[in-house]
Each structure stands twice: as structure tokens, then as C-alpha cells.
């Protein structure tokens, strides 16, 4: 056999299984979910009439869906900048040639690698009305709320917890970015008399732009899909004030078995994520030259 033919064959063979899995469990479901969303599709029962855009129309008029969407965006808008700034701040400090960098890196990373369900369960304990968090607040003469059962404070409680969980992961990404910046740049700037502050703004920030793009895009995609923590900690309660989009989606499936409606929510959220990601890519340019 000629080497070229062998190569072709080998290539197809190597990717055959992943391709099959992808077709069956990703591409087909993706199209199929769209198909289902145009139908009334109860999980039990055999009547599945085509209803066109009715699911989407109902979704548009569904108040709880709008609350869920608003909460999801609120969550994203608060979590993404906070965790990105925190990550950058910690990375810059840890990169100052201090001892025990590994220790700090490890301890900041830990919350990001363990089960989100387990973390949520632990934090339910901290957030109790007479729990640890309120005990801390009492030192500042603040009478803390019963966080997770309070319509105003349930979502902020989850937001705080998630900033804590994910910032460590992004801190390591920033640290890798910082360490790839050539030291000569800083030296040259120093010789030219640039202050520490202007070195940060003129050198560090622009050169970290690809890392920032990576972090912001990834965390926005993640945040728009927030689910585990909400499901475990409050089940989207106190209903409907702290529900999020995915939580609402799952709820429609499990409580009502409305697969068509569930599919419509899924597609709307998918389009939102796609659009938001494209907009970000346009506004934060990833390429840097130096």
C-alpha cells in the first residue's frame, strides 16, 4: 500500500470512534432538540403535535423565564468582573518573587477542583440564619439575614460563593500569562523612568489581553449556565426570585415533563450564549504584537 493511502486510512481509523460519538450524542441531539422545540412533547403520552413557534411565544410571555434570565445575567455581570479582577490581583501579588508560590497557587486552586455539589452543601451550613457567616458579621454589628431563604439575599449568597470557587483557577491562568512576559520589557521601561503603575498599565495589561480574553469568554459561558450550586443550595428558591435559566429548564422537565418547552428554553439560551461570545470576541481583540 502506498504511504499516502495508509495515512488516509490511519487518520480515519484514529478518529472514527470520537466522530461516531459526536454525531450520535452531540450533532444529532442538537438538531433534534430544535425539532422537539417546535412540538408539544410531553414525556409521558404519545400525542406530540407540531405547534410551530408556540413554545417560543409562550416562553416570551413567561414571567418566570424572564426572572430566570434576569437573574442569570445579573449573576454573570457580577461574577465575571469580580473573579477576573480578583484573579489578576492575586496573580500579580504572587508573581512578585515571593517564597512559597506553590503553596499559594495550590491553596487558591483547591475550591476549583472539588465537587461543586459538595461545596454547595458545606456552604448551606455556613449560610444558615445562625451559621458561621452571620457569626462573622455579628462582629461588625451586622445582623445577617437567613441568606438562602431570603428572596433578596439568596442569589448574592450564591454569587459570593462562586467568586470564591472559580477565581483561583483563573489566577493560575493569569500567573502563566504574567510569567510569559519577557523581563527585558520591564527593565527597558524602568531605564526609561516609567513608574511601577505605568509599567503595569502600559506593559502588563496589554500583554495579558489574550489571557483576559480566554478567561472572560470561558467564565461568561460558564456563568450563563450556572446550575449545580443553585439547584443544590436553593433549588431556585425562594421561588421564583432566585431561579436561573438552566434551573428553570430542568424544573420544566422534572416537574411537568414538558420536553418541548424544555427544548425551547435550551435553544434560546444557546443562541444567547453564542451571540454574547461573538460580541466579546469582537470587542476584546486577542492578538497582541510585541
Amino acid at each position: 500500500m502506498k504511504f499516502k493511502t495508509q495515512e488516509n486510512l490511519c487518520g480515519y481509523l484514529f478518529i472514527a470512534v470520537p466522530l461516531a460519538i459526536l454525531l450520535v450524542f452531540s450533532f444529532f441531539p442538537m438538531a433534534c432538540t430544535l425539532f422537539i422545540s417546535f412540538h408539544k412533547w410531553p414525556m409521558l403520552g404519545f400525542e406530540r403535535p407540531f405547534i410551530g413557534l408556540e413554545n417560543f411565544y409562550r416562553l416570551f410571555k413567561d414571567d418566570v423565564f424572564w426572572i430566570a434570565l434576569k437573574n442569570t445575567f445579573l449573576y454573570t455581570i457580577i461574577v465575571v468582573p469580580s473573579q477576573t479582577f480578583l484573579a489578576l490581583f492575586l496573580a500579580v501579588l504572587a508573581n512578585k518573587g515571593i517564597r512559597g508560590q506553590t503553596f499559594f497557587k495550590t491553596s487558591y486552586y483547591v475550591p476549583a477542583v472539588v465537587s461543586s455539589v459538595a461545596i454547595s452543601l458545606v456552604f448551606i451550613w455556613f449560610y444558615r440564619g445562625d451559621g458561621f457567616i452571620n457569626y462573622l458579621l455579628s462582629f461588625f454589628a451586622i445582623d445577617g439575614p437567613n441568606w438562602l431563604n431570603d428572596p433578596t439575599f439568596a442569589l448574592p449568597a450564591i454569587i459570593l460563593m462562586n467568586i470564591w470557587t472559580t477565581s483561583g483557577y483563573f489566577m493560575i491562568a493569569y500567573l502563566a500569562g504574567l510569567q510569559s512576559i519577557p523581563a527585558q520589557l520591564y527593565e527597558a521601561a524602568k531605564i526609561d523612568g516609567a513608574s511601577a503603575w505605568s509599567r503595569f498599565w502600559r506593559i502588563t495589561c496589554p500583554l495579558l489581553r489574550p489571557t483576559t480574553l480566554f478567561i472572560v469568554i470561558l467564565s461568561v459561558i460558564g456563568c450563563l449556565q450556572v446550575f449545580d450550586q443553585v439547584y443544590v443550595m436553593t433549588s431556585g428558591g425562594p421561588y421564583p426570585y432566585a431561579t436561573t435559566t438552566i434551573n428553570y429548564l430542568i424544573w420544566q422537565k422534572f416537574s411537568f415533563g414538558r420536553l418541548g418547552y424544555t427544548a425551547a428554553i435550551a435553544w434560546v439560551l444557546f443562541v444567547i450564549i453564542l451571540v454574547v461570545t461573538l460580541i466579546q470576541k469582537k470587542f476584546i481583540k486577542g492578538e497582541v504584537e510585541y
Partner: protein
Amino acid sequence: MKHRKILLIPIYIVLILVAIIYIFPFIYSFLGSLMSYQEIMSYPPKFLPSSPSFSTYRTIFELEFAHTKLFPRWILNSVVISLSVTALNMFFASLAGYAFAKINFKGKNVVFLLFLSTLMIPGFTLLPTQYLIMQKLGWIDTYFALIIPSMCTVFSIFLMRQFYQAIPNDLMDAAKIDGCSPFGVYRRVALPLSKPALSALAIYTFMGSWNGFQAPLFFMHRIEMYTLPLGMSFFKTQQYVFYNQVLAGSIFTILPTLVVFLIFQKYFVKGIAFTGMKF
């Protein structure tokens, strides 16, 4: 020099304070799992158990449902599923990653774009239909439902491809000239070099699978088929469960990933470097 050292002191203080904030919840919940129920619910909160005991752990391991000890069963489920997913990903992703990086087969770029495009599809969009597929296949409440769809993720393939791309072509060409078949080049040249990438991949996959929640929630309905995280979330909703038991169970869910992370952490950072910021 002295001046510089003094400047570093506030930085150390901030870093240490933050480190305490990040580690403390884990230590405290471990201590909590050694307390009695009364102690755990007391106010002001107690920080050290007055008579530490592992009896809570024994209690949750003895919990029975329909003649099955739930907790050991959940651990078994989680172990079987995450180890299978990890092994399968290592095998298939290294093959496919190598193909995409180093084999010039027809239509490679189109297929690769097809693969990458699925990274844009959020998992939840697929779940409603995947559920129907699993039903048709009779895979609801079986390990297949959680193993097969994630046996070779695009993320794994991408990670391996990035790694193989960094290997110089000269190595491969030399082997080809010496008469190696395409498979031989992979088997004898590329695979032996890929230990660090495979380790990173194994750790990521294991953790992702162990911590996974949405898929088990959708596909596992019988309580004895739950994974550990799903079991824990169910555990919490039962009114008669005591909170020290929930803490003990959480510690148990956290422990394996924590240990794996602490042992292999250098590969983690490598993994970030492989997939890289090449967006």
C-alpha cells in the same frame, strides 16, 4: 535589598489572608464532620469538636435502602464511571489528537472544525434529546448512559492535539524514512513522548467525571445508581438527615479529587499550558 524585603511584607499578609479564606471552609467542614449534631448547630459556632469522633462516617456508611448500603454503592458507581471515562478518553483522545496534529488525511481540517464547533454547544442543550436516546437504548439507570457520551470529549482531543503539534516533525519524518508505518510512528515515536499530556488529560477527565452532576441527574433515576454528588444532593433534601452526616458525605466527595490534585498538581498547570491561551 532590605528595603525590598520590607515592601514584600504587606504582600505576604494579603496572600496569607486570602489563602486562609480559600482553605478554611474545607478544614472547618472536616472538623464539623467530627462533631455531634448538637455541636454543629450551636450558636455561637464551635470550631473544635469537644470529643472528636468518626461515628458520623460510620453512620452514613451503614445507611440502607432496599437492602443496599447506599453510600458504598454510590462510591462504587462514581469510581467505576470516572475510571472508565478516564481510561477511554486517554485511549481515544491520544489517537484522535495525534491524527489531527500529525497525519495528513483528506478532509482533516473540515472534520476538525466540526469537532471544535461542538465546544460551542452547551451540554444542557443536548440533554433533552440525549434523554430520549438513552430511553430508546434502554440505558437509563445504567453506567452506559454516563460513560459512552463522554468517552472521548472534544476537550480531551483538543488537549492532545495541542501537545502533539508541539513535537517537531523531524522526529516523525525520521521514523517514516526508516520505514515506519503511520501507526508505527504513532505507537513508537509519539505515544512514548506523551506521558505528561496524558497525565494532565487523565487528571482533568477524572475530576470532571467525578464531579459531574447534570448528566447523572438526568439519566440516573434509581437511588442505587446515583453517583456520589447526586447522592449527596439527594441526601440533603431528606428531612430526617442530620447535618453532620451531610458534612461527612461532602468531605468524602471532596477527598478523592483533592488527593489526586495535590499529588499531580504540576500536571494541572501543564494542562493549562497545553490547551494554552491560543484562542
